[in-house]
């Protein structure tokens, strides 16, 4: 069930209404049942796998809390292996075999290892990481094991963030499922505004840009450098609107019922460096990697070369987390290299900027930094979006060669849509620059007319300019 569907709208209204109508003691069950239904709307049978890992992690949590010494560590390892094992089988097995078969083929062997003919369970990487954060936090003693099986299952399966995050931590969410929630008009109102802003970003901007991006990236050789460049920039905006739109809807849907999920995006394209970008983009994942992988490897409290390696490795794994494909690995490696390079040249940059008369906090310098960061991030997106490494290299090569031509808008994208898309991008940046977060945070009795205008403009915009083709969210595939 996609958020951008009428089914979800109906589902959301029914689930929220029943939630507030039920006594507190039955609400966890209602939300769990609704979440199961939500998940089973994709591929029903995969709920068995999800429940399998939930049972393992539930008992692992309790036993880890009780255990001491090596036994405690082994229980954590069992939990990690069982979670990662599912991920490996469903997400990476065929990728490994693909490369193994290619390698044996090159070596002259006729042996072909058989592939698994399976679909990737939707949102597998997200709920796996969320489950892992629970057992790790219990192991570290930062959180007590959850004794209520239903509440723990709800922690993993809570439908707003089940398939694409935010990847929550037990400290932030679990206690909320125990708390008695009363209907709060302001929570409801703020959640509603988050949701319509998310829908606007997804349906009006992301799905419109997707039409051009898909056409160009699926047939790169048929397009000139101008179109390749426009499609690449559009993809940078598309993926942001798609994923941050999803996150807004998820956080808003939870907020309507009084639950607070963590912020996942904070205007990432306003970042002045790659380091800052990752503090603003997919925050729940980048902090996950920071807390559970980077710090476990020693973080920056190691020798300098090892620190660089740690950074690079974490981003390489992050790329692999996104998908079993060399394109994602290259994307992750690029970001790893960016970060290392950023540290290496930081002093030179400061000195150079000073010599060129750009004070640290000048608007011009900030603008140039934002532009450079956006360019680097967008360059890496080429590998993220391209269907293959060769496609990505073709796109890079042709953009660099700069064989520009006119807008090949006739076949895919009309002049109208092109102009509208650029206008929407400008509107997006202006709106998110200062205003949207402030308007969303306004309570019901604050600036009523502004709140009204926000609702009317967005809903009218969605209805008039939306692309209603039920395009899935990009991050659902991960």
């Amino acid at each position: 069930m996609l958020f951008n569907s009428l089914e979800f709208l109906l589902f959301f209204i029914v689930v929220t209404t029943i939630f507030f109508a039920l006594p507190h003691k039955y609400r966890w069950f209602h939300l769990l049942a609704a979440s199961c239904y939500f998940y089973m709307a994709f591929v029903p049978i995969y709920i068995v796998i999800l429940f399998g890992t939930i049972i393992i992690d539930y008992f692992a949590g309790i036993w880890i809390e009780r255990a001491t010494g090596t036994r405690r560590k082994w229980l954590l390892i069992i939990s990690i292996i069982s979670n990662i094992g599912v991920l490996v089988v469903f997400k990476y097995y065929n990728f490994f075999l693909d490369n193994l078969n290619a390698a044996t083929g090159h070596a002259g062997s006729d042996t072909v290892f058989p592939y698994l003919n399976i679909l990737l369970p939707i949102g597998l990487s997200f709920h796996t990481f969320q489950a892992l954060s629970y057992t790790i936090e219990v192991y570290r003693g930062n959180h007590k094991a959850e004794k209520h099986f239903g509440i723990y299952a709800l922690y993993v399966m809570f439908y707003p963030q089940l398939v694409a995050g935010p990847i929550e931590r037990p400290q932030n969410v679990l206690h909320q499922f125990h708390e008695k929630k009363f209907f709060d008009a302001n929570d409801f109102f703020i959640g509603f505004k988050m949701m319509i802003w998310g829908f606007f970003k997804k349906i009006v901007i992301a799905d419109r840009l997707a039409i051009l991006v898909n056409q160009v990236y699926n047939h790169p050789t048929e397009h000139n450098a101008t179109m390749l460049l426009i499609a690449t920039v559009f993809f940078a905006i598309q993926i942001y609107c798609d994923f941050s739109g999803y996150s807004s809807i998820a956080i808003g849907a939870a907020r309507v019922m009084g639950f607070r999920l963590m912020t996942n995006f904070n205007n990432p394209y306003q970042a002045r460096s790659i380091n800052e970008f990752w503090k603003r983009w997919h925050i729940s994942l980048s902090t996950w990697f920071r807390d559970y992988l980077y710090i476990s490897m020693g973080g920056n409290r190691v020798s300098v070369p090892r620190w660089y390696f740690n950074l690079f490795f974490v981003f390489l794994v992050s790329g692999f987390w996104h998908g079993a494909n060399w394109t994602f690995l290259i994307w992750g490696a690029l970001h790893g290299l960016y970060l290392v390079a950023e540290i290496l040249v930081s002093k030179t940059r400061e000195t150079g900027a000073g010599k060129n008369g750009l004070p640290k906090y000048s608007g011009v310098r900030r603008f140039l930094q934002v532009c450079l960061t956006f360019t680097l991030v967008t360059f890496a997106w080429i590998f993220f979006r391209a269907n293959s490494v060769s496609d990505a290299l073709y796109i890079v090569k042709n953009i660099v060669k700069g064989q520009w031509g006119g807008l090949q808008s006739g076949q895919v994208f009309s002049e109208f849509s092109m102009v509208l898309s650029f206008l929407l991008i400008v509107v997006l940046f202006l709106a998110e620059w200062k205003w949207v977060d402030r308007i969303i945070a306004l309570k019901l009795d604050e600036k009523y007319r502004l709140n009204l205008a926000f609702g009317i403009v967005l809903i009218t915009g969605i209805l008039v300019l939306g692309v209603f083709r039920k395009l899935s969210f990009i991050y659902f595939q991960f």
Partner: protein
Amino acid sequence: MRLVTYFIIVFVSSAALVWAFSRAANKGLRKSQIEFYGKINAASDTAKNTELLVIGSSRVMVNIDTRILDSVTGLRSYNYGLNAAKIKTCLNLFNYALHFQRQANVLLLNIDFNMFEIGDDPYTDAYYYPFEKYYPGFLLNDSSNSSTIHKFGFLDVALYDDYVKYAAIDGWLRPNRKVAGGFNGYYPHANLNDRVNLNHQFTGGDQYQINEYGFSLLSDMANRAKAKGMKQVFVMAPYYNDYTTRNYSKTYQGLIARIAQFAAEKDILFLDFSALKLADDETNFYNYNHLNQKGAGLYTHIIADAIKNYLHPAK
């Protein structure tokens, strides 16, 4: 209470704005005189009392000169040819035309090799008001997943990527802008436009097969025409000969045989003009599958004579 008031105001205001936009856009569309909307408007408003409906893709729009058709057959014809239209859109066009053209008694349908590739149809059924208004059933049956459509949200207005520059907003904001047209839906092309494409290698040619769903739509069209007592003529317009033989050899035989059988069963005249003599001469072509004005003139004369003989056979 304040929350309820908020939602009432927001949703009512949004609905009112959407309605107003829809009205404004559709009003503009009705005045549009260009490309698709222009053809629809002309067909519904000014070309009433058409007797011969000419339906098909661009290979109708630029290939069949309605002036010649009218003069030879003595019928009033209208060319409903629409760029890249597949059988689903052809059926929509036909149904729409019948709504206005009560005197229509002859259907001339052009068959294309790729006509039954429903997925390639660039149109949804939910576009500009006529189909939506009169044939809402098509909305429910819409199977188009075309990536080339930009429907305007929930409005009954859609912008086609291929055609948008001629379409809604353009016509609405700049009603005086016109594309040079021909006569009753016929769009003449001057000379050979693209020699490269004349020898175009279309590698996917052999993959064009008859889609059974598409064929059922063709059957619907034939049955409806028959129920209206219309005479039906199916033709296959010329392709530049070398192109046809090189690229469609397998598909060609299968499609022709199937259409011929269908036509025989339904008492329809089927004329395969795909390899006419005029198709050997590149000076008759605009590109590899469209005739220019000279070629269209020659071709329309052949069709018109055939229709005349079919309707009034020599004793």
